[in-house]
């Protein structure tokens, strides 16, 4: 039960942070697979079942743009932060830093 509780709380904690991490990472262009790998290399593991629907949601909200392009003889969908997404990300990062500083002060 305690581990279930930890998992649930961790999930809640990660949910918003993941969005910021994905948006920030897509300041440079990536397709799903390399984005996931790159996030993992930075210590942020995210499974495919979470990442792809998240990308699609962010795109439908206008925060990302995407295009199908051929690379290594395969069609791949490349994502990038949109102009609107950049503005939103800046605001989210300011919020994030403020929150982080507040929590640090509390801790």
């Amino acid at each position: 039960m305690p581990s279930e509780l930890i998992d649930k709380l961790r999930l809640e904690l990660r949910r918003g942070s993941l969005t910021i991490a994905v948006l920030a990472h897509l300041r440079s262009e990536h397709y799903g697979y390399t984005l996931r790998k790159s996030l993992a290399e930075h210590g942020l593991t995210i499974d495919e079942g979470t990442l792809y629907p998240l990308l699609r949601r962010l795109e439908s909200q206008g925060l990302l743009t995407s295009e199908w392009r051929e690379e290594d003889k395969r069609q791949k969908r490349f994502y990038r932060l949109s102009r609107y997404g950049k503005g939103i990300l800046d605001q989210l990062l300011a919020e994030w830093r403020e929150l982080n500083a507040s929590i640090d002060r509390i801790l």
Partner: protein
Amino acid sequence: MSSVVELYVLQLKSLLPRKQRDDIAAEIRESIASAVEERERTLGRKLDDRETSEILKTYGHPIAVAGRYLPMQQLIGPSVFPLYWYVIQAVLVVIAAIGGSVAAIALFTEPRATQAAIQVLVRFFWIALDAGALVTVAFVLLDRRHVRFRFIDDFDSRKLGRGFLGMRSAPLDTIPRWDTVLELAMIAILLLWWIGFLVFPTVQFGVKVELGSAMARLHVPVLVLCVLDLLRLGTDLAYPYRTLPRILVAVVSNVAWLALLVLAFASRDLLQAAPSVEDPAEIARVVMIAERTFRAVLLGLGVWTAGLLVTDVRRLLRHL
């Protein structure tokens, strides 16, 4: 591409939203292909079906994967849900209390007690289901139409408790919810019996007994009092605290009930035999027995109502 992957993507595709089906499936297929390719590069050989299945397992079952692409819809949104939860609990508790009481009465009065009680419980189970469905549909519609509740949106703690039935006054103490539910169930049963919706055994020693002319005169007053009491108790359920005006309303209600009970007790023709009965001597005897029983019930109700009245009067005197 391995047939295992093709089968996986095919199954996933059949579960995805129609408009995005091809696009999502192509993206997932590409992602799987990249993962397989990387693994093959590491091992320096082609993957077999077992190894490919292991990769697919990290993506999850097609139903789970497709589910994440479906629109996140709520039947009842968070702005309406707390009110819905409160209303449905209140409705179900009241129905359960009425059903339980009627079942208990059936257990003590019906010839086939257990069977009758089960029948009552089953009937009330369906009533509860219907009521639950109706309340849910009503709140779904309210949510879909984005109906706002002013008393929640414009909440002001200074106004809390103002309004109907003397809630403008300062609350004195809380009313236990179970007391209200019990009273509500009793009044509801009385009302349902009074209007003929519930029928309790009326045959005594083979003679069918019905209410006499004295009781017929009380038909409208009892009906009115029942409805008023249901309103009062419904308010108690929604706003479970006492105020002086609300105690006063309860006192007036109990005085009225007591007056009706005294009138009924003092009447001559409480009960009479149904017109179909033929033997006059037997009729007189059975009516007498039934009438004595009925008087005992009236006496019990009178004592109970007087008890409530005395308690409320004491409350009033304490706070005046």
